[in-house]
């Protein structure tokens, strides 16, 4: 009580709070479509002793929304993505399926390795950027906005084809500089509260921030249905939210800073299984 009045800030981390208030954490229950929510032996050089999906930190009623694909409201977008996959759009008269045929085969594993290096553009592309590159170049269709319903539906649908597969993003070769830039963004203190991602998600995960249970801030479930948003949202939207909370001026969706962060964050979660569409609070 006393602590929560401290300076009137939202960021008081409950001292020594490891009580699992309303958090199930039952080891025997898992989200639908995955076989594990942890990587017990992280990759060499990982700053984490154990890599844990955000699912673990949620209350049982939130977890239950992701234990059954029908109960999961994120599937409203996956369904829509599937119909968009087969819908002709643009002057070239093509749909995604015209070139990529069955997503279940052609897109399997793709979402686990994004963002990926694009040799032509000489830069990494996120799933959103890759989709728009396809739309504008091959379909001669209009690009979708980052947070547009169609974009969320398509990214959710494509990434869902990799559900249960381990996240494995390239961070060497041409991707090295981007991963390093992402790491720099991750550890740089910003905003009026002078905090970095690491202050909450590395140093204090598992503890409470007011009544909220801090996760490791992993990205394996995105796009994610957030109860707060009452809809599906992109990873970059979540980044923006976090930055606003620490009273920083957020970068833009699709900015190089956020793309770099996405690469580094995916690497931090290397080996975690894709859960898209996850449900979080």
């Amino acid at each position, binding site marked *: 009580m006393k602590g929560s009045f401290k300076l009137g800030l939202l960021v008081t981390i409950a001292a020594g709070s490891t009580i699992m208030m309303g958090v199930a954490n039952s080891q025997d229950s898992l989200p639908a479509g995955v076989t594990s929510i942890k990587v017990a032996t992280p990759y060499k050089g990982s700053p984490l002793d154990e890599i844990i999906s955000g699912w673990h930190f949620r209350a049982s009623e939130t977890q239950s929304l992701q234990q059954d694909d*029908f*109960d999961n*409201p994120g*599937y*409203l*977008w996956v*369904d*829509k993505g599937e119909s968009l996959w087969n819908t002709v759009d643009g002057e070239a008269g093509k749909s995604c399926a015209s070139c990529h045929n069955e997503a279940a085969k052609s897109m399997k594993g793709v979402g686990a390795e994004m963002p990926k290096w694009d040799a032509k553009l000489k830069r990494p592309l996120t799933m959103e950027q890759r989709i728009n590159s396809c739309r504008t170049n091959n379909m001669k269709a209009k690009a979708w906005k980052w947070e*547009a*319903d*169609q974009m969320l539906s398509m990214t959710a649908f494509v990434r869902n084809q990799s559900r249960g597969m381990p996240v494995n993003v390239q961070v060497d070769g041409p991707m090295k500089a981007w991963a390093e830039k992402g790491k720099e963004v991750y550890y740089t203190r910003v905003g009026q509260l002078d905090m970095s991602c690491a202050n909450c998600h590395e140093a204090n995960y598992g503890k409470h921030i007011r009544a909220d249970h801090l996760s490791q801030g992993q990205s394996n479930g995105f796009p994610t249905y957030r109860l707060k948003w*009452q*809809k599906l949202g992109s990873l970059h939207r979540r980044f923006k939210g976090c930055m606003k909370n620490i009273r920083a001026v957020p970068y833009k969706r699709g900015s190089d800073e956020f793309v770099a962060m996405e690469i580094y964050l995916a690497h931090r979660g290397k080996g975690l299984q894709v859960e898209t569409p996850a449900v979080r609070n």
Partner: protein
Amino acid sequence: MAGKPKPRVKAPKTASKGEVVNIKTLISHKMETGLRKNKKTGEKIPRNIINKFVAKFDGEEVFSVDIDPAISANPYFQFSMKAEKSGEFEFAWISDNGDTYSKKSKLTVK
């Protein structure tokens, strides 16, 4: 969710006579309460919710819900029906703006 609301239904295709079957439904809808204000203009955002859900079997109402704005976005309903004969489910969602969304599903009773 922008665009036309899309219903999802999970209902069994077959059942034995007298069996109580479980039905789950979900529809994409913002469920705008009418109490929120537009942050930029300060004007109230008009209420637009799904105000009624009806489940019929062969034209006869089995279950329905009168809905208020306190029901969450993307409304979810789970309920049951005793299967007596083969027939067709018809589910309908009615919104404040008069639009009705519906979905059908056949049930064979053995």
